[in-house]
């Protein structure tokens, strides 16, 4: 007991100790990340040495990246735009294509999840089309839409379709039988069933699908824009390669990676919020 009494006053820390504790906590979480980054930079540096100057060093890339980010939105005509403009162009296409894709995939997945007959009919079609690289659809989009940026968006639509479709179907298929029974016993209308049972029950799976769709769409956009040209991060990468500036290529890779990470984090944050809300939090 005496020991416990001694401990209690210590818990009321003074302001400096609190700050120190805070800094300590931040360091605890950040230090492994920093270690990882340092290892990556080290390996990169070694690779740059081995390549004999072909690959840019991390430091050279950092200075290029700083330069690119210092004025991200400059616009000196069609072939010379800031990286911010390129990023916005890519994001715009990804969100448009992804939005159209999931707007098709979610209702279709709800139908497929609810009907075994429909699943049997469409599963082979989906299984054949799903493994096709979305870029294979690019010429088709080009032929129909007569517009390279629109054809890229079309390829993104196709890309975004599959993960959301498959996950929505699974989510709807796995709605607990008890909840379906409840809606039958209490004679829920179709709309009541969809809004109060089906959508909330399948929501986590739908969100997972949307997240996977977004991840793949973000990967495909770079390749698509390399083909399409004009604007976008993919075009920026290809244009930098043509200008033999690997520092710019590496900088663009970093921007692409960090944006992809941010998009993914956004979805997991939404998912956590929704899960907390479903369990009665806020």
């Amino acid at each position: 007991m005496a020991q416990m009494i001694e401990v209690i006053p210590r818990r009321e820390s003074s302001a400096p100790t609190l700050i120190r504790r805070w800094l300590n906590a931040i360091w605890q979480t950040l230090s492994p990340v920093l270690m990882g980054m340092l290892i990556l930079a080290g390996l990169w540096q070694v690779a740059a040495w081995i390549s004999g100057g072909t690959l840019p060093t991390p430091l050279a890339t950092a200075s290029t990246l700083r330069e690119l980010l210092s004025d991200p939105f400059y616009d000196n005509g069609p072939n010379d735009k800031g990286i911010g403009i390129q990023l916005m162009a890519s994001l715009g296409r990804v969100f448009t294509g992804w939005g159209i894709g999931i707007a098709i995939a979610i209702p279709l997945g709800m139908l497929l999840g609810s009907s075994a007959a429909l699943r049997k009919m469409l599963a082979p079609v989906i299984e054949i089309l799903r493994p096709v690289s979305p870029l294979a659809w690019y010429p088709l989009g080009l032929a129909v839409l007569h517009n390279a940026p629109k054809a890229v968006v079309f390829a993104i639509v196709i890309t975004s379709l599959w993960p959301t479709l498959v996950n929505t179907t699974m989510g709807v298929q796995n709605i607990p039988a008890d909840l379906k029974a409840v809606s039958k016993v209490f004679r829920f209308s179709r709309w009541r069933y969809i809004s109060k049972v089906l959508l909330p029950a399948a929501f986590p799976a739908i969100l997972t699908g949307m997240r996977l769709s977004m991840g793949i769409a973000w990967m495909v956009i770079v390749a698509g824009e390399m083909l399409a040209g004009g604007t976008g991060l993919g075009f920026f990468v290809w244009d930098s390669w043509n200008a033999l500036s690997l520092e710019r290529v590496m900088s663009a890779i970093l921007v692409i990676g960090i944006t992809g990470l941010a998009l993914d984090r956004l979805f997991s944050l939404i998912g956590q919020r929704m899960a907390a809300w479903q369990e009665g939090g806020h």
Partner: protein
Amino acid sequence: MAPRLLPRTTPNTAILPMEPAPLLEISSVGKNYPSGQGQINILHDIDLTIQSGEFISFIGHSGCGKSTLLNMIAGLTSISTGTMLFDGKSIAAPSPERAMVFQHYSLLPWLSVYQNVYEAVDSVQTEMSKAERKALTNDVLARVGLSNHMHKKPMQLSGGMRQRVAIARAFAVHPRMLLLDEPFGALDALTRGSLQEELLGLWSGDARTETVVMVTHDIDEAIYLSDRIVVFSDGPGATIKEVITVDLPRPRDKQSLMNSPTWNNLRTHLLLSLHC
């Protein structure tokens, strides 16, 4: 789709001229499930007539098909053979007239307690005004003592409280027959006892819900609540072993009943019946 047998438009009252038309008439009902190359028989030759106003318990070992029979009465599972008439009409689909309380509560976890009941009321009580539906929802929740927990989500409630919500939801649609599938099986003994009392209170206090059919594996629960206890033989291929009438006056007082000879005789009889 199971073959629909000819519905009998007039209930067969010739056999028991003194009895009123039964609420539920089960004749030679059986259930088979496809399994591999053949079929597995779950239930066969079920004959049971339930009158309006009765409290019936189904008791038997796990896997004897008592829940299957309850689901068939609910219209959630199709019958393979025989006929099942509710109020003279063949049971074709689930209906709020035969509202069900499920073993695992089956509340919608994303809706509040109030919304869980209100969605059912709103769906079924179509002739009521919105204000009446709201008043009914508040009223049933008050009757199960959940007025102070209306805005909580099911996850925030204890098992007993969740089952109270499910019972309130079922009573709120004014079913003619209430079906309960092992409603208190997952609850501790104390909670189970008070929920049994509340169920009896709701049943005797509501003239619209006259008839209750409950699946249980608790002998004391079956005796305390029921007018008749239907004992099932072991499955697969189960059937009704016997139907025991519980001749105890209502309202029943659990404490004094548990020492009465009738109770003990019934208990011994049921124990032997279930263990042979």
